C-alpha cells in the first residue's frame, strides 16, 4: 500500500501490551501487521471503532510506546526524531498549565535548543497563524478549550515537522467551534504545506478534512479500507460540505466503518 515519495511509511507494524492482571494469558495484541503509507502533502484521516488502536498507532510513531515488530519510516528514514520530524497534537491538548501560551508554543523549539530570539519570532508567527495574537501572556486555564487546542496545534506546527499527527484534536470542543477549527486547520495546512495524519471519530470530519480516509478494523487493528476523497485541495475556500458528492463520500466511509464495527 506504500506509495512513491512516501513521507510516512508504516510496514508490518505489530504492537502488544502486557496484561499485568493476567500475566499468563499472554500479551494483548492491539495492532497486528499494519501497513500504510502517506505521501508528502497528503491529509490522511483515520477512522475506526473505539479501542482499535488508533491512539496506540500514533503513540508508537512518536515513540511513546515500543513496537514489537515492523518498521516506521519518516521521509525514508527510520532514525527520525520526535519533536523535530514528527509532532503529535494531543486530544487533551497536553498543554503545560504553568507555561503561558507563548511558552507553550515555544516548547518544542526550546527542546531543540533553538536560540531565544529565533524561538520568539517563530513562536509569534504560529501564534498569529492560529489566531491567538493578544493571548501570548495568558495561561491555559485562562482561555477556552478551542483556544487551548489552537495552542496545541501552534506548538506542533512551530517545530515545522515533516509530519503532523493529530489524535481527535477537536473531540472536546463544542460543535460550532469544531467546524470553525476544521476550516481553519485546512487553511493552515495549506499555508504550511503540511502532511497530516488525523484520527477522528466523526465521519463527516474525516471526509471533510482528508484527501484520503483510512478505516481501521479492531482486534487486532489493521487497515480495512483506503478511500480516496477527491474533493479538491482548495476545499476550505468553498464549503464542500454543502455539495452532494461530499455526502456520497460520507456514505462510503460510513459503510466501510459499519463493516468493521462489531
Amino acid at each position, binding site marked *: 500500500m506504500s506509495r512513491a515519495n512516501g513521507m510516512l511509511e508504516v510496514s508490518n507494524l505489530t504492537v502488544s501490551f502486557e496484561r499485568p492482571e493476567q500475566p499468563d494469558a499472554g500479551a494483548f495484541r492491539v495492532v497486528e501487521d499494519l501497513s500504510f503509507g502517506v505521501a508528502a502533502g497528503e491529509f490522511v484521516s483515520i477512522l475506526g471503532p473505539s479501542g482499535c488502536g488508533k491512539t496506540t498507532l500514533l503513540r508508537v510513531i*512518536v*515513540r*511513546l510506546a515500543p513496537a514489537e515488530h515492523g518498521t516506521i519510516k519518516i521521509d525514508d528514514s527510520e532514525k527520525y*526524531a*520526535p*519533536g*523535530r520530524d514528527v*509532532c*503529535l497534537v*494531543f486530544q*487533551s491538548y*497536553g498543554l*503545560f*498549565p*504553568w*507555561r503561558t501560551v507563548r511558552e507553550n508554543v515555544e*516548547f*518544542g523549539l*526550546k*527542546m*531543540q535548543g533553538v536560540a531565544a530570539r529565533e524561538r520568539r519570532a517563530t513562536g509569534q508567527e504560529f501564534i498569529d497563524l492560529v489566531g491567538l495574537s493578544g493571548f501570548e501572556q495568558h*495561561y*491555559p*486555564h485562562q482561555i477556552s478549550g478551542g483556544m487551548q487546542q489552537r495552542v496545541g496545534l501552534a*506548538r506542533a506546527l512551530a*517545530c515545522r515537522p515533516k509530519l503532523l499527527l493529530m489524535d481527535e484534536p477537536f473531540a472536546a470542543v463544542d460543535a460550532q467551534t469544531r467546524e470553525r477549527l476544521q476550516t481553519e486547520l485546512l487553511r493552515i495546512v495549506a499555508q504550511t504545506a503540511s502532511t497530516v495524519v488525523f484520527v477522528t471519530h466523526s465521519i463527516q470530519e474525516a471526509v471533510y478534512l482528508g484527501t484520503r480516509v483510512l478505516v481501521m478494523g479492531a482486534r487486532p487493528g489493521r487497515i480495512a479500507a483506503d478511500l480516496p476523497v477527491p474533493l479538491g485541495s482548495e476545499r476550505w475556500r468553498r464549503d464542500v460540505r454543502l455539495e452532494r458528492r461530499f455526502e456520497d463520500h460520507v456514505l462510503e466511509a460510513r459503510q466501510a466503518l459499519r463493516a468493521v464495527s462489531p
Partner: protein
Amino acid sequence: MTPLERLRGPKRHLARWAPQTAIWTGLLVLWEIWGRGQSPFFFTYPTAIGRALLRLASSGELGQAILDSLQVLLLGYGLGVAAGVPLGLLAGRFAYLRRLLSPLMMAFYVTPRLALIPLIIIWVGIGFWAKVTVVWLVCFFAIFFNVLHGMSSLSRSYLEVAQAYGANEAQILREVTLPGILPFIATGLRLGLGLALIGMVVSEFLIGLNGLGGIIVYYSVRLRVADVFAAVTVIVVIGTALMTGARALEQRAAHWQLSARAFR
C-alpha cells in the same frame, strides 16, 4: 444600600473591622484589669508585658536573642532545603530508590522526629550545631515528603508530551518536573519553615539555654511571667510574619493551579 456600602476606601475598611477592634480592645482591657489583681509570679497583664518588652529590648538582651535564634533557624532550615529538595527529586525519580528507602521513610513519617533529640545531643554534643541539627531534622522531612508527593502527583501525560517533543532527561527536569511540582515544593518550604520554628524553640529549651527559647525558660524558672510573655509574643510575631511570607510565596508559586487552597 446599607450604610456600610455607602462608605469608601479606608473608612469603609475601618467600619468593617470596627466590631472586631472593639471586641479585641475590650478583651485586652478586661485582661489588664483582671491581670493586675493576680500575683505577678503567676500571671501578668498587657501593660506589664509591654514594659518587659521595652526593658528586654533596651538592654540588648532581646536583640541578641533574636540574632541567636535566627542564626540557628536559618542555618538549619537552609540545610534542610538543600538536602530535602534534591533527595526528594531523586527518590521521586527512581522507583527502586523509593522502594529501598521505603521502610525508613515509613518510620520517619509516622514517628515524631523530635524523639531523636536525645540522640542528637549524644552524637553532636550540646552546642550550636546540635540545635542546627534539630532544626534540620524536623524541617528536612517536610520538604522531602512534599517534593516526593509532588513527583507522584505529577501527571504522566506531561512527561509524555515532553518526550514526544524530543526532550531529554535534563530538559524534562528543568522544563516539566521542577515547574510542575513547584507548588508542592513551595508547600514543603512553608510547612518546613513552621516545623523549623518548632525545632528552634525546642532545641533552645533543651540545648544550651539561649536565643528566644532560652529567654522563655530563663524567666519562667525565675517566675517573671511578664518577661516570659514578652518573649512568647516576639516568637509568635516572628513566626506568624515568616509564615505569612512563606504563604504568599507559596500562592505565587501555585498561581497557575486552579485549586491552590490549603489554608488562608
